[in-house]
């Protein structure tokens, strides 16, 4: 069989670390990353032997190492980027009364007179231990404030996710089963409409119908510490619905496309010629082979649910991370901006890594080497 190795382009016999990179569908985010990053002190030949013997473990280790490295690079960029922002907390804070002396005093207070590298190292050291310093604006601990906000954001994202992901996959499979017939067309049109409308518009529409005219939903969706679980749920009903409508179409269409792609393969024909039912063909024979692309889209949408929901939070007056960060940017409250940025980046990287790992694990060639 054709298991002799890659036959595209002249292979380089030099790279000692390029051992286990012979999978077709594992990576969607970063094509040709240097795998050496993951291994650190491990020497080439040892790593290569390991990756030949345990390709799955080697790939997972590689991804983990890569994520850590990526997070480190992001922290550098966030810190540097925020430093390079025009404007200055002291001038904004003091407004009209910003005499050079007063500005200088505040800068000294906040430790801005220290060199940048020193500040970066102490910030990163704190961040690793979960301490993001104190907010310049409110003088409170950033970690404490973020903790609460992050909890709220995750609460919202969690419910949006557990509704939208199964719904999207199920609708996608349904659309495949009835492809080019009426149910498929209805699903397509409705989901396309939902994705085409801006999220604030969908939000206001939902408020108009369910809160104002029918009066069945609560608005605004602000949650307090004193609220019970049930109250919280009813408060977030509308923002969750908005988010579901926004992310559903993307995942649904990707599921449909990925499964349709697989449906054209010979093994689906085999399944059909075995006289299996349409549903079993889709669920058992097509879906497992469509996992990798679908997982990647799901991960991107989950990341969006955590990171990109600021508009929905503003519309529904929901106290989440996004709103917190935007507020901090307007007053140039750097520790808060940096902390939010880093946490968002961490979520993004973590979710994409999880998607990569799941896609790798879903590949039987890597799970069961020859």
């Amino acid at each position, binding site marked *: 069989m054709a298991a*002799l190795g890659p036959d595209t382009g002249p292979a380089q016999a030099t790279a000692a670390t390029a051992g286990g990179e012979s999978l077709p569908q594992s990576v969607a985010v970063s094509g040709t990353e240097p795998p050496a990053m993951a291994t650190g002190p491990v020497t080439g030949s040892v790593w290569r032997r390991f990756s030949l013997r345990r390709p799955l473990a080697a790939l997972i280790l590689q991804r983990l190492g890569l994520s850590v490295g990526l997070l480190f690079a992001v922290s550098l960029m966030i810190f540097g980027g925020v430093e390079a922002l025009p404007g200055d907390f002291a001038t904004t804070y003091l407004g009209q009364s910003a005499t050079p002396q007063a500005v200088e005093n505040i800068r000294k207070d906040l430790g801005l007179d220290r060199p940048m590298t020193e500040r970066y190292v102490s910030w990163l050291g704190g961040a690793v231990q979960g301490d993001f310093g104190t907010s310049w604006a409110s003088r409170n601990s950033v970690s404490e404030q973020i903790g609460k906000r992050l909890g709220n954001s995750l609460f919202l994202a969690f419910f949006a996710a557990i509704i939208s992901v199964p719904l999207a996959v199920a609708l996608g499979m349904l659309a495949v089963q009835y492809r080019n017939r009426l149910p498929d067309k209805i699903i397509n049109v409705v989901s396309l409409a939902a994705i085409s409308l801006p999220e604030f518009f969908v939000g206001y529409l939902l408020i108009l119908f369910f809160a104002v005219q029918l009066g069945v939903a609560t608005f605004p969706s602000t949650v307090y510490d004193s609220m019970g679980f049930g109250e919280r749920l009813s408060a977030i009903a509308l923002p969750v619905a908005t988010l579901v409508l926004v992310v559903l179409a993307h995942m649904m269409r990707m599921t449909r496309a990925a499964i349709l792609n697989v449906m054209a393969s010979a093994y689906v024909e085999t399944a059909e010629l075995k006289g299996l039912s349409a549903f079993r063909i889709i669920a058992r*024979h097509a879906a497992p082979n469509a996992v990798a692309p679908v997982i990647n889209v799901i991960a991107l949408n989950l990341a969006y649910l955590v990171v990109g929901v600021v508009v929905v939070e503003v519309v529904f007056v929901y106290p989440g991370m996004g709103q917190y960060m935007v507020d901090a940017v307007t007053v140039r409250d750097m520790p808060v901006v940096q902390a939010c940025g880093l946490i968002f980046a961490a979520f993004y990287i973590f979710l994409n890594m999880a998607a990569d790992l799941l896609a790798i694990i879903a590949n039987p060639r890597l799970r069961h080497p020859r």
Partner: protein
Amino acid sequence: MPEPESTTLLSVRNLKIEATSYPPGEPPKTVTLVENVSFDLEKGKVLGLIGESGAGKSTIGLSALAYGRGGASITGGQVLLDGVDILTLGRNGIRTIRGCKVCYVAQSAAAAFNPAHRLGEQVIEASLRHGIMTREEATKRALYLFTVLGLPSPETFGERYPHQVSGGQLQRAMTAMALCPNPELIVFDEPTTALDVTTQIDVLAAIKHAIEETNTAALYITHDLAVVAQISDDIMVLRHGKTVEYGTTQQIIEAPNEDYTRALVNVRQTKRQEAVDQSDTLLKVDNVSAGYGNGFKVLDNVSLHLPKGQTLAIVGESGSGKSTLARVITGLLPPSEGTIRFEGKELPKALKARTKDELRRVQMIYQMADTAMNPRQTVRDIIGRPLSFYFGLRGAQKTERIKELLDQIEMGAPFLDRYPAELSGGQKQRVAIARALAAKPELILCDEPTSALDPLVAEGILNLLLKLQEETAVSYVFITHDIAIVRAIADSVAVMHRGRLVRFGPKSNVLSPPFDDYTDLLLKSVPEMKIGWLESVLTTRRMASAGN
């Protein structure tokens, strides 16, 4: 052929199959794939359907499952299975036939097995879903079938995933999958075409043994008359969707009535005497080793040479390193050791280090002409490119030369502005040959240029290559797995096995005894157009192993 009604299992009457095609820029039109085909198949018998690609043989085979592939639909006639017309059963009714009474074995088992599930699960799936047997019964039957089909360690074979077993084993597993629900009829769609000859004979023997053992009837579809002669009771020859000839295997092989059948039986009769003088060396490969970076040597210390104006055939199975050798000669894959000399002068190892003239002198023709051409370029662009690249030709001069080349490949000026999609498989390969010739090379590397073509078309290409060799004194390195082609065109032969050169020399030496074990196996595995050939080979083998 009148038979008593009771033993007839499958009866196809006046079958008509059509498909809708969508030519770009034109209204959709209906194409007739199969017309007025009728045959009967008795219980436990095998009918061979034979013809070139496009003859409609797969389409007819799938009609026994009332299945139309890729938009084909059965528009007329009857398919009677046990007296019931399965075309009238409807969506749910047909599901009780498929995978239950009639099963299908696809050409490429590697593609037809689901990569996400274990083989055993897939083999017993149909039996379970149709409620034919319980899980234990099905597992037991699968084990029995794995044993009958000669699969290694049948007890644990079902636990493996498709990528963990070889192509020949997968093809046998596919046969087991088809046999598992105890069907009355199996449709074999070119089950051995994708395999090496040495593997093909094993799979063929296993299939024959298994269908005899279980007394299952079969439709056996192939383009290779020699293969079908070994396994079927009756043969139907098809061409362009119509029946050419239908009779017993003996009659078709030994006394064909139609010219087309005769041509099929007599194909590969081209023979060429080898050149006597093999001294004027053009290409010399010395102690070449090469691999793909993971330490595994795909080529191990290979040395051979080729005289001017002659043909060296390199034979071997897939994975023997024959295509890698071609890549090394072209410079696409620099060898790790050894040298390549052209007219006594050493060629730089890597492609990039070679001069334009060195590149010009070695050209290549690929197995799949389809993928070796840019589908958005016309024949004029494809052939014209080397002309402007190597010789700087342009304008009328270039067109003149392209026309000359088109005449040489027996196609002519009307093809100038056609796109590859508008050419047949054989015509595409001819254009690829013209593109190679355009550079006026001294050596053309032909990497299985005929193995994707139908026998008669392939023969045309071989004759063209021989004619061009006489006209231009070009040398060929001809890579193939087909011994008949070697006999037809080669002057010298190199037999490769697992990256090593097993045997090398003038054709008459290499192809005559005494043989080494591998060459012997290779030569004896090539199907012959003779009834009973398979049995005689198997008997010889058994006697040989009993004698040891």
